């Protein structure tokens, strides 16, 4: 005779699933969904920082933003910075993930040091970089000056400074470098998790079959962690695309508009300039691109997983 227990709501997998999902959904709705919907409402209205009454103006703000030559340059800069950074982030993250999954003395300390750029509050880290890259008192310039690379007869420049954040080329390189420095640890940690999850029997079999390091890496490990790599890339790209802190602290978009990115321009127009409607419209231009990118990358990850 089997014992029949009374019906209990938690026996229903749908109920339990919904309950487990609820906190995450609530978080997304409140922290992401509501501001996103508000931005859409603002983008189609004529709100200012002083008056958030929603008067519908159709696509006027989006048309005005698209006609703005500065915006088009800012949009292009944002995409360029994001793509270039991702190449370096992926490269460094893969190398570091492989190193940190090996056994060596001081591994835990090395991991701890390495994670710091990501764990440090971004604004504090950027103030540190602001000092490092100061146009006049940069310690990097000081070292180059002392070693003869700068100053009269210097190989890099006859000046005493390289003007890291004042030269168009160096300012762009600096911003990309700092973004790579900041985002690489996150991508590395995600890839390390991926590498650790590869079943050891597969790797053992490869070793028995005589596969060497590069062969194992390229033909076994990387294909297996591809879905995770795509997720790491997606995280990194979305974070960078919407970030304004790095350039706000380092360059405020200068010199000229060379480092002005979408988030910063949206803030300058919407909050500092008071034109909240156009500021919202500027930020929304990123949405279709990010959405398409996310769908493409998640489908890629999903296909790779199925294989």
């Amino acid at each position, binding site marked *: 005779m089997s014992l029949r227990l009374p019906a209990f709501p938690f026996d229903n997998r749908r109920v339990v699933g919904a309950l487990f999902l609820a906190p995450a959904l609530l978080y997304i709705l409140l922290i992401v969904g509501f501001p996103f919907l508000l931005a859409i409402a603002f983008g189609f209205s*004529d709100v*200012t*920082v*002083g*008056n*958030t009454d929603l008067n519908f103006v159709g696509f006027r703000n989006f048309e*005005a933003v698209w*006609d*703005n*030559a*500065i915006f088009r340059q800012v949009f292009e800069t944002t995409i360029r910075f994001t793509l270039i950074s991702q190449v370096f982030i992926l490269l460094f993250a893969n190398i570091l993930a492989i190193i940190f999954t090996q056994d060596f003395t001081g591994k835990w300390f090395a991991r701890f040091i390495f994670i710091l750029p990501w764990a440090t509050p971004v604004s504090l880290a950027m103030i540190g970089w602001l000092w490092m890259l100061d*146009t*006049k*008192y940069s310690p990097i310039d000081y070292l180059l000056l002392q070693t003869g690379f700068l100053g009269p007869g210097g190989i890099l420049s006859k*000046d005493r*400074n390289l*003007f*890291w*954040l*004042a*030269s*168009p080329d160096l*300012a762009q390189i600096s911003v990309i470098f700092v973004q790579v420095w900041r985002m690489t640890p996150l991508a590395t940690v995600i890839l390390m998790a991926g590498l650790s999850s590869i079943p050891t029997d597969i790797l053992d079999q490869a070793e028995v079959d005589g596969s060497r390091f590069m062969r194992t890496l390229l033909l076994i490990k990387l294909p297996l962690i591809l879905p995770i790599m795509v997720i790491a890339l997606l995280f990194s790209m979305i974070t960078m695309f919407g970030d304004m802190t790095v350039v706000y602290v380092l*360059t*405020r*978009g*200068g*010199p*000229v*508009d060379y480092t*002005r990115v979408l988030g910063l321009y949206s*803030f*300058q*127009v919407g*909050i*500092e*300039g*008071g*034109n*909240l409607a*156009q500021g919202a419209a500027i930020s929304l231009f990123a949405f279709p691109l990010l959405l398409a990118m996310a769908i493409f990358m998640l489908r890629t990850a999903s296909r790779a997983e199925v294989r």
Partner: protein
Amino acid sequence: MNRAIRLLIVLSILAALGVGVNAQGDYAEGTEISLLQWSHFVPRYDEWFDVYAAEWGEANGVGVTVDHVNFTEIFSTLAAEIDAGDGHTIVEVLFSPASYIDGLHDLRDINEAAAAAHGERTSTCHAASYLPINDTYYAYTHGYVPDPGDYDIALWTDAGYPEGPKTYDDLLEGGRAIYEATGIPVGIGMSPELDSRMANRAAIWSFGGSIQDEAENVVLNSEETVAAVKYLAQLQNEAMTDEVFGWTAASNNQALIAGEVSYILNSNSAYRSLQKIDEAAAANIGFTPALAGPAGAYASSHVWQIYVIPKYVEGDELAAAKQFILDHTENYSDVTYHSELYNFPCYPSTVAELDGWLEEDPWGSQPPNKFEVLKTVNDWSVHLGFPGVTNPAVSQVFAESIIPNMVAQVALGEQTAEDAVAAAHERIEEIFADWRARGMVGGGDM
């Protein structure tokens, strides 16, 4: 007119206007006001102000809280508080908050009360708090900050200009000679930040150009503006380093204190910092009024001290806030003194000692009359919207750093002055058209 009589007049006018305030502090028990101010560039002022505000609160039976934040955070905080409908009672901003007008109380009553008590105020203060198209006083400007030239006396004396440069031609000739002889450059920013925005506008005005005309029509694209931009590019190429493309709000101060610049445009805060570090070096710094160009000598005020009261403030809190603001103006001698002559009064009559202090600096400058040149400040100091009004479009043009970016592009050799000015004009037209559609900017009939 002594202070007691002026106070009586203010109170009478306020009573007549129904502002509903009372010097004895007849506010409901528990009335509190809170102030959000930018951390003053002269720290002594904040020390004095916090004590003053607390004593005012005790005398009037009002709880007073003062919060100081970095100046870069003021506008974003004000925007958030207006949107939330809750926050500080009084917020002090540095530039005209014209685009916030719908979220702010009309302060016509206290502006008129102060004018009646203290007489005419300087035009730059009026322009930073009044929007003619709406006939609204969206703010109360109590002070402004002169933006003279600071020059290295020894260097400029060697170059043949013992009293510093007086014209833009002097600045180019003398600055270039000093740079070639010593490697010490002129320091006028050309980057997206506050000091660059001011300095570049000063040159454009002095060459006869401007962003808008008196009727709020965009007129940037002119021969005069092109000439000013060409001049600034030449100045950068011949007398400055590339550092100016990465100039920050602290660069003036750093360069002056380090003795690595021959001339800057700045308030007196950079000099005051140097004075506390090295008195001899400070004695070698002189001040000049706005440099003269082909069309005159103009410089923007460095910043303004502008009080606003968001609309969410009501009742006794609002009445107490208005009284606080008027009493603060009443005590402007203390304000100017404790700011080490940084804050200049919008109502000159409130600081009768000012000319005497400029002739003999109470904070120990050598020579004592170092600031005497600032006696003429009201002849050459203008506001951001000059020669029109400071409207929301002017504020957005300022926030987007369109002017310094335009200048930098030419100095970097990326665009001709004609093309850069035309492109900037086009963007500014777009901004003006947008605000005009909201009914907050006039003109547009050209």
